[in-house]
């Protein structure tokens, strides 16, 4: 009995109900992001020559929410060891640093324009 309990602690089996809820949430997210793309959500002039459009921001925010649901539940990270959680988080952080720094450089210079 105690051995079985230990095994359960080590290897968490995610129930089909959880998978179905996540599946439903992903479909709702897809519908929302398609719907949002039909509207012009406007823009924010941060500084001269630097404008933030809301449409891509909303699309990426919904995509990231969907990605989090897949990673946490379908990919079991929510139920994984601390080592896996730390590895995944560190990997995404590194990814954001690389992409963010590169884009910050390109977006704030006038190089490359024809």
């Amino acid at each position, binding site marked *: 009995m105690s051995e079985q309990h230990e095994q359960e602690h080590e290897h968490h089996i995610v129930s089909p109900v959880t*998978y179905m809820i996540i599946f439903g949430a992903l479909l709702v997210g897809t519908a929302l992001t398609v719907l949002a793309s039909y509207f012009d959500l406007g823009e924010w002039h941060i500084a001269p020559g630097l404008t933030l459009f809301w449409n891509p921001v909303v699309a990426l925010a919904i995509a990231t929410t969907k990605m989090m649901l897949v990673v946490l539940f*379908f990919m079991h990270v929510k139920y994984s060891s601390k080592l896996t959680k730390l590895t995944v988080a560190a990997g995404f952080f590194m990814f954001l640093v690389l992409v963010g720094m590169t884009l910050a450089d390109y977006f704030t210079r006038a190089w490359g*324009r024809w």
Partner: protein
Amino acid sequence: MSDSTAIANGGQALSNSANTANSAHGEHPPYQRHHFASVEQQADTTNFAMWLFLLTEIMFFGGLFTSYLIMRNWYYQAFVDASHQLSIFWGTGNTVVLIASSFTMAMSVWSAEMKRRKSLLIYLCLTLVFGLTFLGIKGIEWHEKWEKHHIPGAHYSVQSFLNPQSDPEVYKEYQDKPLPPDAAQKTEEYFFLYFAMTGMHALHMVIGIGILVFMIFRAKAGAYTTGHVTFVENFGLYWHFVDIIWIYLFALLYLISRH
């Protein structure tokens, strides 16, 4: 008990060799490799290694996404008009198909964990069907680009962008203004990145489908439902990762320039 004794015993050889196999593996199941202290340690290690591989994949696709964002920022109008060529109908359809395949893959992992061979086979086959459907729809979309000469290269045509009304189906929906010739040339950059990104994604799908077929044959022979689910689980991670890439491709290529 040594092998020679087993042979010498003649009639008892079969049961004895079974004992030999047992003693070689000691107190652990046969699928546990000898350099691991426990099955849990083995599962944690392979899971960790799979995540490291997926992180290198994220960096690889990250390069493509970053190039796309830089180019889109430089040649904004060309990228907006070029992305109007993509069909929101097929794009949304493919997103639903791929999310469904991720769900059936998650259910495959559950079936393996619950040791249900039949349900594992059904869910793996469904995952395969959804994967093939995705590639079929992608093929329809690519074929349309071929017909319209929107594949970068010697036969690339900027007609749809110099004279949007020559492309009535797209014009009806977006009423794009004609692009100046230098900007119209830059639509080729968009399609180059479109094919690089969706093509690399499709290649990952093809590899995944190959492994799925292999797994279906193995599962039919009774594999994965004996308590050793690592292979199905780690393949699931790969399949969900491919799904995540598509979620971003759909948002960036199809949606953000629509309105």
